[in-house]
Protein backbone atom coordinates (compact mmCIF):
# COMPACT_ATOMS: atom_id res chain seq x y z
CA UNK A 1 0.00 0.00 0.00
CA UNK A 2 2.76 2.36 0.94
CA UNK A 3 4.18 1.97 -2.55
CA UNK A 4 1.58 4.04 -4.27
CA UNK A 5 3.17 7.44 -4.47
CA UNK A 6 1.19 9.00 -7.27
CA UNK A 7 -0.47 12.10 -5.89
CA UNK A 8 1.89 12.47 -2.99
CA UNK A 9 3.84 15.67 -2.43
CA UNK A 10 7.30 15.31 -0.89
CA UNK A 11 9.04 18.53 0.20
CA UNK A 12 12.37 19.36 -1.40
CA UNK A 13 14.55 22.15 -2.68
CA UNK A 14 15.59 21.51 -6.28
CA UNK A 15 14.69 23.68 -9.27
CA UNK A 16 11.63 21.47 -9.90
CA UNK A 17 10.21 22.81 -6.65
CA UNK A 18 10.94 26.41 -7.51
CA UNK A 19 9.22 26.27 -10.86
CA UNK A 20 5.79 27.76 -11.38
CA UNK A 21 3.12 25.04 -11.36
CA UNK A 22 1.75 26.35 -14.64
CA UNK A 23 5.03 25.81 -16.40
CA UNK A 24 5.35 22.38 -14.86
CA UNK A 25 1.91 21.31 -16.03
CA UNK A 26 2.54 22.74 -19.50
CA UNK A 27 5.94 21.06 -19.68
CA UNK A 28 4.37 17.77 -18.61
CA UNK A 29 1.77 18.11 -21.37
CA UNK A 30 4.32 18.94 -24.03
CA UNK A 31 6.68 16.14 -23.03
CA UNK A 32 3.83 13.64 -22.97
CA UNK A 33 2.84 14.63 -26.48
CA UNK A 34 6.48 14.15 -27.50
CA UNK A 35 6.42 10.69 -25.97
CA UNK A 36 3.46 9.89 -28.18
CA UNK A 37 5.01 11.36 -31.30
CA UNK A 38 7.99 9.02 -31.24
CA UNK A 39 7.56 5.87 -33.24
CA UNK A 40 10.96 4.35 -32.89
CA UNK A 41 12.35 2.34 -30.01
CA UNK A 42 15.81 3.93 -30.03
CA UNK A 43 14.37 7.44 -29.91
CA UNK A 44 12.08 6.68 -27.03
CA UNK A 45 14.98 5.16 -25.13
CA UNK A 46 16.86 8.43 -25.62
CA UNK A 47 13.83 10.13 -24.16
CA UNK A 48 13.90 7.77 -21.19
CA UNK A 49 17.47 8.85 -20.56
CA UNK A 50 16.31 12.43 -20.78
CA UNK A 51 13.69 11.75 -18.14
CA UNK A 52 16.28 10.08 -15.92
CA UNK A 53 18.42 13.18 -16.36
CA UNK A 54 15.54 15.36 -15.16
CA UNK A 55 15.25 13.14 -12.09
CA UNK A 56 18.98 13.43 -11.49
CA UNK A 57 19.06 17.22 -11.80
CA UNK A 58 15.85 17.55 -9.84
CA UNK A 59 17.33 15.55 -7.01
CA UNK A 60 14.60 12.93 -6.97
CA UNK A 61 15.93 9.49 -6.08
CA UNK A 62 15.27 7.05 -8.91
CA UNK A 63 14.48 4.35 -6.38
CA UNK A 64 11.51 6.34 -5.17
CA UNK A 65 10.06 6.48 -8.65
CA UNK A 66 10.83 2.81 -9.15
CA UNK A 67 8.89 1.98 -6.02
CA UNK A 68 6.04 4.05 -7.38
CA UNK A 69 6.10 2.03 -10.58
CA UNK A 70 5.68 -1.24 -8.77
CA UNK A 71 1.87 -1.23 -8.69
CA UNK A 72 1.73 -0.92 -12.48
CA UNK A 73 4.22 -3.76 -13.01
CA UNK A 74 1.41 -6.23 -13.66
CA UNK A 75 -0.09 -3.89 -16.24
CA UNK A 76 3.30 -3.58 -17.91
CA UNK A 77 3.71 -7.36 -17.93
CA UNK A 78 0.32 -7.81 -19.56
CA UNK A 79 0.88 -5.25 -22.29
CA UNK A 80 4.29 -6.71 -22.94
CA UNK A 81 3.02 -10.28 -23.34
CA UNK A 82 0.09 -9.27 -25.51
CA UNK A 83 2.31 -7.25 -27.80
CA UNK A 84 4.77 -10.10 -28.10
CA UNK A 85 2.04 -12.62 -28.84
CA UNK A 86 -0.12 -10.72 -31.27
CA UNK A 87 2.17 -8.65 -33.46
CA UNK A 88 3.11 -10.86 -36.36
CA UNK A 89 5.25 -8.74 -38.66
CA UNK A 90 8.96 -8.24 -39.16
CA UNK A 91 11.78 -10.73 -38.86
CA UNK A 92 11.36 -13.87 -36.86
CA UNK A 93 13.46 -13.67 -33.71
CA UNK A 94 12.52 -16.94 -32.16
CA UNK A 95 10.53 -19.82 -33.50
CA UNK A 96 9.78 -22.88 -31.54
CA UNK A 97 7.10 -25.44 -30.99
CA UNK A 98 5.55 -25.56 -27.57
CA UNK A 99 4.56 -29.12 -26.88
CA UNK A 100 2.46 -30.13 -23.96
CA UNK A 101 2.99 -33.77 -23.00
CA UNK A 102 1.78 -35.73 -20.03
CA UNK A 103 5.22 -35.64 -18.49
CA UNK A 104 5.93 -31.95 -18.77
CA UNK A 105 2.34 -31.13 -17.84
CA UNK A 106 3.02 -32.89 -14.56
CA UNK A 107 6.29 -31.03 -14.17
CA UNK A 108 4.54 -27.78 -14.93
CA UNK A 109 1.98 -28.38 -12.21
CA UNK A 110 4.84 -29.17 -9.82
CA UNK A 111 6.68 -25.99 -10.73
CA UNK A 112 3.55 -23.90 -10.25
CA UNK A 113 2.91 -25.51 -6.88
CA UNK A 114 6.54 -24.93 -5.96
CA UNK A 115 6.21 -21.32 -6.96
CA UNK A 116 2.99 -20.96 -5.00
CA UNK A 117 4.51 -22.21 -1.78
CA UNK A 118 7.90 -20.57 -2.01
CA UNK A 119 6.88 -17.17 -3.34
CA UNK A 120 6.34 -15.70 0.11
CA UNK A 121 9.97 -16.36 0.98
CA UNK A 122 11.37 -14.68 -2.11
CA UNK A 123 12.24 -11.05 -1.83
CA UNK A 124 11.45 -9.77 -5.33
CA UNK A 125 8.35 -11.77 -6.08
CA UNK A 126 7.75 -10.12 -9.41
CA UNK A 127 11.10 -11.18 -10.84
CA UNK A 128 10.48 -14.63 -9.43
CA UNK A 129 7.14 -14.83 -11.25
CA UNK A 130 8.73 -13.79 -14.55
CA UNK A 131 11.51 -16.28 -14.00
CA UNK A 132 9.02 -19.10 -13.40
CA UNK A 133 6.96 -18.20 -16.49
CA UNK A 134 10.07 -18.08 -18.66
CA UNK A 135 11.21 -21.37 -17.14
CA UNK A 136 7.92 -23.07 -18.00
CA UNK A 137 8.02 -21.76 -21.57
CA UNK A 138 11.58 -23.00 -22.01
CA UNK A 139 10.62 -26.39 -20.68
CA UNK A 140 7.62 -26.64 -23.02
CA UNK A 141 9.83 -25.97 -26.01
CA UNK A 142 12.90 -28.04 -25.12
CA UNK A 143 11.88 -30.85 -22.82
CA UNK A 144 9.08 -32.81 -24.46
CA UNK A 145 9.23 -36.53 -23.75
CA UNK A 146 6.12 -38.69 -23.56
CA UNK A 147 2.76 -38.63 -25.28
CA UNK A 148 1.84 -35.28 -26.76
CA UNK A 149 -1.39 -33.69 -25.60
CA UNK A 150 -1.24 -30.68 -27.84
CA UNK A 151 1.34 -28.56 -29.50
CA UNK A 152 1.37 -25.14 -31.01
CA UNK A 153 3.76 -22.85 -32.77
CA UNK A 154 5.23 -20.07 -30.74
CA UNK A 155 6.83 -17.40 -32.84
CA UNK A 156 8.28 -14.17 -31.63
CA UNK A 157 8.70 -11.50 -34.28
CA UNK A 158 11.09 -8.64 -34.11
CA UNK A 159 8.32 -6.09 -34.44
CA UNK A 160 6.45 -7.68 -31.58
CA UNK A 161 9.44 -7.52 -29.30
CA UNK A 162 10.33 -3.98 -30.27
CA UNK A 163 6.72 -2.82 -30.10
CA UNK A 164 6.33 -4.35 -26.67
CA UNK A 165 9.45 -2.70 -25.31
CA UNK A 166 8.43 0.53 -26.97
CA UNK A 167 5.04 0.63 -25.28
CA UNK A 168 6.56 -0.34 -21.97
CA UNK A 169 9.13 2.45 -22.10
CA UNK A 170 6.45 4.91 -23.13
CA UNK A 171 4.24 3.92 -20.20
CA UNK A 172 7.16 4.22 -17.81
CA UNK A 173 7.99 7.68 -19.15
CA UNK A 174 4.43 8.90 -18.79
CA UNK A 175 3.99 7.59 -15.27
CA UNK A 176 7.38 8.96 -14.22
CA UNK A 177 6.67 12.40 -15.63
CA UNK A 178 3.32 12.65 -13.89
CA UNK A 179 4.85 11.40 -10.68
CA UNK A 180 7.49 14.13 -10.90
CA UNK A 181 4.74 16.71 -11.17
CA UNK A 182 2.77 15.56 -8.15
CA UNK A 183 5.91 14.80 -6.16
CA UNK A 184 7.25 18.31 -6.48
CA UNK A 185 4.10 20.42 -6.47
CA UNK A 186 2.02 21.22 -3.43
CA UNK A 187 -1.64 20.32 -3.95
CA UNK A 188 -2.66 23.94 -3.51
CA UNK A 189 -0.16 25.07 -6.15
CA UNK A 190 -1.24 22.30 -8.45
CA UNK A 191 -4.81 23.40 -8.03
CA UNK A 192 -3.99 27.00 -8.80
CA UNK A 193 -1.86 26.05 -11.79
CA UNK A 194 -4.53 23.80 -13.26
CA UNK A 195 -7.12 26.46 -12.74
CA UNK A 196 -5.08 29.04 -14.61
CA UNK A 197 -4.28 26.67 -17.43
CA UNK A 198 -7.87 25.55 -17.85
CA UNK A 199 -9.08 29.14 -17.80
CA UNK A 200 -9.68 29.23 -21.59
CA UNK A 201 -12.37 26.57 -21.09
CA UNK A 202 -14.50 29.22 -19.38
CA UNK A 203 -15.42 30.43 -22.87
CA UNK A 204 -17.31 27.19 -23.45
CA UNK A 205 -19.01 27.49 -20.05
CA UNK A 206 -16.82 24.97 -18.27
CA UNK A 207 -15.80 26.28 -14.89
CA UNK A 208 -12.06 25.80 -14.68
CA UNK A 209 -11.95 26.55 -10.96
CA UNK A 210 -14.31 23.73 -10.14
CA UNK A 211 -12.51 21.23 -12.32
CA UNK A 212 -9.19 22.19 -10.80
CA UNK A 213 -10.64 21.88 -7.32
CA UNK A 214 -12.12 18.45 -8.03
CA UNK A 215 -8.86 17.16 -9.44
CA UNK A 216 -6.76 18.47 -6.61
CA UNK A 217 -9.09 17.16 -3.91
CA UNK A 218 -9.09 13.75 -5.54
CA UNK A 219 -5.29 13.71 -5.66
CA UNK A 220 -5.05 14.97 -2.13
CA UNK A 221 -7.22 12.18 -0.77
CA UNK A 222 -5.45 9.21 -2.33
CA UNK A 223 -2.86 8.86 0.46
CA UNK A 224 -5.41 9.67 3.14
CA UNK A 225 -7.71 6.92 1.96
CA UNK A 226 -4.83 4.45 1.78
CA UNK A 227 -4.04 5.31 5.36
CA UNK A 228 -7.65 4.73 6.33
CA UNK A 229 -7.65 1.40 4.51
CA UNK A 230 -4.62 0.38 6.51
CA UNK A 231 -6.29 1.27 9.78
CA UNK A 232 -9.45 -0.61 8.84
CA UNK A 233 -7.41 -3.68 7.99
CA UNK A 234 -5.81 -3.54 11.44
CA UNK A 235 -9.19 -3.10 13.12
CA UNK A 236 -10.64 -6.06 11.24
CA UNK A 237 -7.52 -8.14 11.80
CA UNK A 238 -8.03 -7.71 15.52
CA UNK A 239 -11.44 -9.32 15.04
CA UNK A 240 -9.89 -12.35 13.43
CA UNK A 241 -9.86 -11.42 9.76
CA UNK A 242 -6.69 -12.87 8.32
CA UNK A 243 -6.03 -10.86 5.18
CA UNK A 244 -2.99 -12.89 4.26
CA UNK A 245 -4.78 -16.17 3.80
CA UNK A 246 -8.18 -17.74 3.51
CA UNK A 247 -10.36 -19.53 1.02
CA UNK A 248 -12.22 -17.76 -1.76
CA UNK A 249 -15.37 -17.58 0.34
CA UNK A 250 -13.45 -15.92 3.17
CA UNK A 251 -11.73 -13.58 0.77
CA UNK A 252 -15.08 -12.13 -0.29
CA UNK A 253 -15.97 -11.53 3.34
CA UNK A 254 -12.57 -9.95 3.98
CA UNK A 255 -12.98 -7.57 1.10
CA UNK A 256 -16.48 -6.59 2.18
CA UNK A 257 -15.25 -5.97 5.71
CA UNK A 258 -12.67 -3.61 4.24
CA UNK A 259 -14.76 -1.89 1.58
CA UNK A 260 -17.88 -1.07 3.57
CA UNK A 261 -16.08 0.96 6.26
CA UNK A 262 -13.97 2.45 3.46
CA UNK A 263 -17.09 3.75 1.71
CA UNK A 264 -18.68 4.98 4.89
CA UNK A 265 -15.53 6.80 5.90
CA UNK A 266 -15.00 8.39 2.49
CA UNK A 267 -18.58 9.64 2.41
CA UNK A 268 -18.21 10.99 5.88
CA UNK A 269 -14.90 12.60 4.97
CA UNK A 270 -16.30 14.32 1.91
CA UNK A 271 -19.28 15.47 3.92
CA UNK A 272 -16.99 16.90 6.59
CA UNK A 273 -14.83 18.52 3.95
CA UNK A 274 -17.86 20.14 2.33
CA UNK A 275 -19.03 21.44 5.69
CA UNK A 276 -15.59 22.71 6.58
CA UNK A 277 -15.35 24.55 3.26
CA UNK A 278 -18.76 26.03 3.71
CA UNK A 279 -17.94 27.07 7.27
CA UNK A 280 -15.09 29.08 5.81
CA UNK A 281 -17.48 30.72 3.36
CA UNK A 282 -16.46 28.82 0.30
CA UNK A 283 -19.05 29.47 -2.37
CA UNK A 284 -18.51 27.67 -5.66
CA UNK A 285 -18.07 30.06 -8.53
CA UNK A 286 -17.48 33.15 -6.44
CA UNK A 287 -14.34 35.08 -7.18
CA UNK A 288 -11.69 34.48 -4.56
CA UNK A 289 -8.46 36.22 -3.72
CA UNK A 290 -5.27 34.27 -3.08
CA UNK A 291 -2.49 34.41 -0.58
CA UNK A 292 -0.02 32.96 -3.01
CA UNK A 293 0.26 34.67 -6.33
CA UNK A 294 1.93 32.59 -8.98
CA UNK A 295 5.06 34.19 -10.31
CA UNK A 296 6.24 33.25 -13.76
CA UNK A 297 9.99 33.60 -13.90
CA UNK A 298 12.71 33.33 -16.46
CA UNK A 299 13.48 29.74 -15.62
CA UNK A 300 9.87 28.84 -16.42
CA UNK A 301 10.13 30.45 -19.82
CA UNK A 302 13.40 28.64 -20.43
CA UNK A 303 11.92 25.28 -19.46
CA UNK A 304 8.90 25.79 -21.68
CA UNK A 305 11.06 26.86 -24.62
CA UNK A 306 13.22 23.83 -24.02
CA UNK A 307 10.19 21.55 -23.99
CA UNK A 308 8.85 23.10 -27.17
CA UNK A 309 12.22 22.55 -28.81
CA UNK A 310 12.05 18.93 -27.68
CA UNK A 311 8.57 18.62 -29.17
CA UNK A 312 9.59 20.20 -32.47
CA UNK A 313 12.62 17.99 -32.75
CA UNK A 314 10.57 14.88 -32.02
CA UNK A 315 8.19 15.89 -34.79
CA UNK A 316 11.14 16.51 -37.05
CA UNK A 317 12.60 13.13 -36.19
CA UNK A 318 9.24 11.51 -36.86
CA UNK A 319 8.78 13.22 -40.21
CA UNK A 320 12.30 13.14 -41.60
CA UNK A 321 13.95 10.01 -40.21
Amino acid at each position, binding site marked *: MKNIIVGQYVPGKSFLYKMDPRSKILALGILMVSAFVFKDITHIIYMLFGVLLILKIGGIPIMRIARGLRPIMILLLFTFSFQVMFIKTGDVVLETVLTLTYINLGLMVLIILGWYFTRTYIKSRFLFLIFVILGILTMLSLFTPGITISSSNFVVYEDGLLGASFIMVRLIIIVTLSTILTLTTKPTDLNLGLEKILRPLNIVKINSEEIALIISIALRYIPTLLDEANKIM*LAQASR*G*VDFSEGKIKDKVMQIISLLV*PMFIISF*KRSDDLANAMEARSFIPGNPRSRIHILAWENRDTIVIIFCIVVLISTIAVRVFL
Partner: protein
Amino acid sequence: MAIKFEQVNYLYPSFDGSNFSALENIDLEISEKGEFITLIGETGSGKSTLVQHMNALLRPATGSVTIYGIKIQKNTNKNKKIKLNPLRQKVGLVFQFPEYQLFEETVLKDIIFGPKNFGVKEDVAIERAKEVIKLVGLTEEYLERSPFNLSGGEKKRVSIAGILAMEPDILVLDEPTSGLDPKGRDALLELFTEIHKKLDKTVIIITHDMNTVYKYATRVLVMHDSELVFDGNASELFKSENIVKWNLDLPDIIEITNQLEKKLDISFNTKPHNVDELFKLMKGVL
Protein backbone atom coordinates in the same frame (compact mmCIF):
# COMPACT_ATOMS: atom_id res chain seq x y z
CA MET B 1 3.87 -13.53 31.60
CA ALA B 2 1.19 -13.18 28.96
CA ILE B 3 2.79 -10.28 27.13
CA LYS B 4 6.40 -9.24 27.28
CA PHE B 5 8.00 -6.31 25.44
CA GLU B 6 11.77 -6.38 25.11
CA GLN B 7 13.54 -3.28 23.84
CA VAL B 8 10.78 -2.56 21.36
CA ASN B 9 11.20 0.20 18.80
CA TYR B 10 8.65 1.05 16.18
CA LEU B 11 8.96 3.34 13.17
CA TYR B 12 6.15 4.68 11.05
CA PRO B 13 7.48 4.99 7.53
CA SER B 14 6.68 8.21 5.76
CA PHE B 15 6.71 8.98 2.09
CA ASP B 16 9.78 11.16 2.02
CA GLY B 17 11.86 8.22 3.14
CA SER B 18 12.40 9.41 6.69
CA ASN B 19 10.83 7.52 9.56
CA PHE B 20 8.85 8.66 12.54
CA SER B 21 9.83 6.85 15.67
CA ALA B 22 6.64 6.14 17.61
CA LEU B 23 8.05 3.74 20.21
CA GLU B 24 11.51 3.82 21.72
CA ASN B 25 13.08 1.09 23.82
CA ILE B 26 9.94 -0.19 25.45
CA ASP B 27 10.38 -2.85 28.13
CA LEU B 28 7.15 -4.05 29.63
CA GLU B 29 5.58 -7.13 31.14
CA ILE B 30 1.89 -7.78 31.50
CA SER B 31 0.48 -10.76 33.31
CA GLU B 32 -2.51 -12.70 32.18
CA LYS B 33 -4.57 -12.28 35.30
CA GLY B 34 -5.52 -9.74 37.82
CA GLU B 35 -4.24 -6.47 36.45
CA PHE B 36 -6.25 -3.36 35.77
CA ILE B 37 -3.86 -1.18 33.84
CA THR B 38 -4.45 2.33 32.62
CA LEU B 39 -2.19 3.69 29.91
CA ILE B 40 -1.95 7.45 29.84
CA GLY B 41 0.12 10.09 28.11
CA GLU B 42 -0.35 13.14 25.98
CA THR B 43 -1.76 13.04 22.46
CA GLY B 44 0.66 11.51 20.00
CA SER B 45 2.87 9.93 22.65
CA GLY B 46 2.45 6.47 21.14
CA LYS B 47 -0.25 4.85 23.25
CA SER B 48 -2.29 3.46 20.38
CA THR B 49 0.87 2.25 18.68
CA LEU B 50 1.91 0.46 21.86
CA VAL B 51 -1.36 -1.42 22.28
CA GLN B 52 -1.40 -2.47 18.65
CA HIS B 53 1.74 -4.44 19.42
CA MET B 54 -0.08 -6.36 22.12
CA ASN B 55 -2.06 -8.49 19.69
CA ALA B 56 0.57 -8.63 16.97
CA LEU B 57 -1.13 -6.16 14.63
CA LEU B 58 2.12 -4.24 14.38
CA ARG B 59 5.54 -5.82 14.49
CA PRO B 60 8.46 -4.09 16.22
CA ALA B 61 11.19 -2.62 14.04
CA THR B 62 13.74 -3.89 16.52
CA GLY B 63 13.30 -5.84 19.72
CA SER B 64 10.56 -8.34 20.29
CA VAL B 65 7.12 -8.77 21.77
CA THR B 66 6.30 -12.17 23.20
CA ILE B 67 2.59 -12.89 23.37
CA TYR B 68 1.52 -16.15 25.03
CA GLY B 69 4.87 -17.68 24.21
CA ILE B 70 4.92 -16.57 20.58
CA LYS B 71 7.76 -14.24 19.81
CA ILE B 72 6.89 -11.43 17.40
CA GLN B 73 9.79 -9.77 15.65
CA LYS B 74 10.33 -7.63 12.62
CA ASN B 75 10.02 -10.41 10.06
CA THR B 76 7.70 -12.76 11.88
CA ASN B 77 4.98 -12.70 9.25
CA LYS B 78 7.33 -14.02 6.59
CA ASN B 79 7.20 -17.29 8.42
CA LYS B 80 3.79 -18.72 7.62
CA LYS B 81 4.08 -21.41 10.28
CA ILE B 82 3.50 -18.89 13.04
CA LYS B 83 -0.20 -18.25 13.27
CA LEU B 84 -0.89 -14.78 14.61
CA ASN B 85 -4.64 -14.99 14.34
CA PRO B 86 -5.26 -16.97 17.55
CA LEU B 87 -3.38 -14.29 19.49
CA ARG B 88 -6.00 -11.77 18.48
CA GLN B 89 -8.69 -13.86 20.10
CA LYS B 90 -6.64 -14.10 23.31
CA VAL B 91 -5.86 -10.39 23.40
CA GLY B 92 -8.98 -8.50 22.37
CA LEU B 93 -8.31 -4.97 21.17
CA VAL B 94 -11.02 -2.34 20.83
CA PHE B 95 -9.92 0.44 18.51
CA GLN B 96 -10.10 4.12 19.26
CA PHE B 97 -12.54 4.85 16.44
CA PRO B 98 -15.48 2.47 15.97
CA GLU B 99 -15.97 3.63 12.35
CA TYR B 100 -13.01 1.50 11.36
CA GLN B 101 -14.65 -1.78 12.12
CA LEU B 102 -18.45 -1.59 11.79
CA PHE B 103 -19.57 -2.92 8.43
CA GLU B 104 -22.44 -5.41 8.69
CA GLU B 105 -26.11 -4.65 8.03
CA THR B 106 -27.16 -5.24 11.60
CA VAL B 107 -25.53 -4.79 14.97
CA LEU B 108 -26.08 -8.49 15.65
CA LYS B 109 -24.13 -9.57 12.57
CA ASP B 110 -21.38 -7.16 13.46
CA ILE B 111 -21.03 -8.50 16.97
CA ILE B 112 -20.92 -12.15 15.90
CA PHE B 113 -18.39 -11.37 13.16
CA GLY B 114 -15.41 -11.67 15.50
CA PRO B 115 -16.44 -14.88 17.28
CA LYS B 116 -17.34 -16.54 13.97
CA ASN B 117 -13.90 -15.70 12.58
CA PHE B 118 -12.43 -17.60 15.49
CA GLY B 119 -14.57 -20.64 14.81
CA VAL B 120 -17.45 -20.14 17.25
CA LYS B 121 -20.74 -21.67 16.03
CA GLU B 122 -23.29 -19.15 14.85
CA ASP B 123 -25.98 -19.98 17.43
CA VAL B 124 -23.45 -19.80 20.27
CA ALA B 125 -22.22 -16.48 18.93
CA ILE B 126 -25.78 -15.12 18.79
CA GLU B 127 -26.33 -16.10 22.42
CA ARG B 128 -23.13 -14.26 23.33
CA ALA B 129 -24.25 -11.21 21.34
CA LYS B 130 -27.50 -11.06 23.31
CA GLU B 131 -25.49 -11.13 26.52
CA VAL B 132 -22.83 -8.60 25.66
CA ILE B 133 -25.19 -6.04 24.14
CA LYS B 134 -26.78 -5.75 27.59
CA LEU B 135 -23.40 -5.63 29.29
CA VAL B 136 -22.39 -2.57 27.30
CA GLY B 137 -25.56 -0.80 28.29
CA LEU B 138 -27.77 -1.23 25.23
CA THR B 139 -30.95 -3.27 24.84
CA GLU B 140 -31.62 -6.30 22.67
CA GLU B 141 -33.63 -4.12 20.30
CA TYR B 142 -30.38 -2.63 19.10
CA LEU B 143 -29.32 -5.98 17.66
CA GLU B 144 -31.61 -5.52 14.68
CA ARG B 145 -30.56 -1.94 13.94
CA SER B 146 -28.01 -0.85 11.39
CA PRO B 147 -24.70 0.05 12.99
CA PHE B 148 -24.45 3.12 10.78
CA ASN B 149 -27.51 4.85 12.17
CA LEU B 150 -26.26 4.83 15.73
CA SER B 151 -24.91 7.78 17.65
CA GLY B 152 -21.18 8.01 18.29
CA GLY B 153 -21.48 6.65 21.81
CA GLU B 154 -23.72 3.79 20.69
CA LYS B 155 -21.27 2.85 17.95
CA LYS B 156 -18.53 2.79 20.55
CA ARG B 157 -20.55 0.43 22.72
CA VAL B 158 -21.31 -1.86 19.80
CA SER B 159 -17.64 -2.04 18.89
CA ILE B 160 -16.78 -2.93 22.48
CA ALA B 161 -19.52 -5.58 22.46
CA GLY B 162 -17.98 -7.02 19.29
CA ILE B 163 -14.71 -7.63 21.11
CA LEU B 164 -16.29 -8.81 24.37
CA ALA B 165 -18.17 -11.46 22.38
CA MET B 166 -14.81 -12.95 21.38
CA GLU B 167 -14.23 -13.67 25.09
CA PRO B 168 -10.59 -12.61 25.09
CA ASP B 169 -8.29 -13.41 28.01
CA ILE B 170 -6.85 -9.93 28.03
CA LEU B 171 -9.01 -6.98 27.14
CA VAL B 172 -7.34 -3.90 25.67
CA LEU B 173 -9.42 -0.77 25.09
CA ASP B 174 -8.19 2.32 23.27
CA GLU B 175 -10.04 5.25 24.82
CA PRO B 176 -13.26 3.31 25.40
CA THR B 177 -14.97 6.10 27.26
CA SER B 178 -14.28 9.05 24.99
CA GLY B 179 -17.48 10.51 23.67
CA LEU B 180 -19.67 8.88 26.29
CA ASP B 181 -21.93 10.62 28.79
CA PRO B 182 -20.75 10.52 32.44
CA LYS B 183 -23.28 7.88 33.46
CA GLY B 184 -22.52 5.67 30.48
CA ARG B 185 -18.81 6.10 31.11
CA ASP B 186 -19.09 5.04 34.73
CA ALA B 187 -21.28 2.08 33.79
CA LEU B 188 -18.72 0.87 31.26
CA LEU B 189 -15.86 1.32 33.68
CA GLU B 190 -17.81 -0.67 36.26
CA LEU B 191 -18.27 -3.36 33.61
CA PHE B 192 -14.53 -3.50 32.97
CA THR B 193 -13.85 -3.63 36.70
CA GLU B 194 -16.28 -6.50 36.95
CA ILE B 195 -14.60 -8.36 34.11
CA HIS B 196 -11.33 -7.73 35.88
CA LYS B 197 -12.52 -8.79 39.33
CA LYS B 198 -15.02 -11.59 38.67
CA LEU B 199 -13.28 -13.28 35.78
CA ASP B 200 -9.84 -12.28 37.05
CA LYS B 201 -8.83 -11.06 33.60
CA THR B 202 -6.33 -8.36 32.82
CA VAL B 203 -7.86 -5.18 31.46
CA ILE B 204 -5.82 -2.44 29.83
CA ILE B 205 -7.43 0.93 29.20
CA ILE B 206 -6.08 3.96 27.41
CA THR B 207 -7.59 7.09 28.86
CA HIS B 208 -7.08 10.79 29.29
CA ASP B 209 -9.17 10.96 32.45
CA MET B 210 -7.06 11.06 35.61
CA ASN B 211 -10.08 10.33 37.81
CA THR B 212 -10.52 7.01 36.05
CA VAL B 213 -6.84 6.27 36.56
CA TYR B 214 -6.96 7.05 40.26
CA LYS B 215 -10.22 5.27 40.92
CA TYR B 216 -9.74 2.02 39.03
CA ALA B 217 -6.16 1.29 38.10
CA THR B 218 -4.00 -1.23 39.91
CA ARG B 219 -1.13 -0.20 37.69
CA VAL B 220 -0.43 2.87 35.59
CA LEU B 221 1.74 3.18 32.52
CA VAL B 222 2.74 6.62 31.25
CA MET B 223 3.94 7.26 27.73
CA HIS B 224 5.84 10.43 26.92
CA ASP B 225 7.58 11.22 23.62
CA SER B 226 7.45 7.61 22.42
CA GLU B 227 8.96 6.32 25.64
CA LEU B 228 7.49 4.47 28.58
CA VAL B 229 8.41 6.82 31.42
CA PHE B 230 6.40 5.43 34.32
CA ASP B 231 5.23 2.01 35.40
CA GLY B 232 3.78 1.77 38.89
CA ASN B 233 0.73 2.50 40.98
CA ALA B 234 -1.44 5.57 40.81
CA SER B 235 -0.75 7.05 44.26
CA GLU B 236 2.95 7.01 43.50
CA LEU B 237 2.41 8.63 40.10
CA PHE B 238 0.38 11.51 41.46
CA LYS B 239 2.99 12.23 44.09
CA SER B 240 5.62 12.51 41.39
CA GLU B 241 7.05 15.83 40.30
CA ASN B 242 7.01 14.80 36.68
CA ILE B 243 3.24 15.15 36.28
CA VAL B 244 3.63 18.58 34.71
CA LYS B 245 6.48 17.56 32.47
CA TRP B 246 4.46 14.65 31.09
CA ASN B 247 1.49 16.96 30.43
CA LEU B 248 -0.74 15.10 32.85
CA ASP B 249 -2.81 16.57 35.65
CA LEU B 250 -4.09 15.47 39.03
CA PRO B 251 -7.39 13.72 39.75
CA ASP B 252 -10.06 16.04 41.14
CA ILE B 253 -9.99 14.52 44.59
CA ILE B 254 -6.24 15.03 44.99
CA GLU B 255 -6.55 18.55 43.61
CA ILE B 256 -9.22 19.34 46.19
CA THR B 257 -7.19 17.83 49.01
CA ASN B 258 -4.12 19.81 48.03
CA GLN B 259 -6.13 23.00 47.94
CA LEU B 260 -7.64 22.24 51.33
CA GLU B 261 -4.24 21.52 52.83
CA LYS B 262 -2.91 24.77 51.50
CA LYS B 263 -5.86 26.97 52.44
CA LEU B 264 -6.27 25.50 55.92
CA ASP B 265 -2.55 25.08 56.43
CA ILE B 266 -2.80 21.47 57.47
CA SER B 267 -1.34 18.29 56.08
CA PHE B 268 -2.78 14.79 55.86
CA ASN B 269 -0.53 11.79 56.04
CA THR B 270 -2.27 10.02 53.14
CA LYS B 271 -4.10 11.11 50.04
CA PRO B 272 -7.79 10.15 49.91
CA HIS B 273 -9.27 8.10 47.05
CA ASN B 274 -12.82 9.39 47.37
CA VAL B 275 -14.96 11.93 49.18
CA ASP B 276 -15.62 9.63 52.13
CA GLU B 277 -11.93 9.13 52.78
CA LEU B 278 -11.35 12.85 52.53
CA PHE B 279 -14.17 13.41 55.00
CA LYS B 280 -12.56 10.98 57.46
CA LEU B 281 -9.19 12.66 57.09
CA MET B 282 -10.81 16.05 57.75
CA LYS B 283 -12.51 14.74 60.87
CA GLY B 284 -9.17 13.42 62.07
CA VAL B 285 -7.48 16.80 62.00
CA LEU B 286 -10.38 18.97 63.12
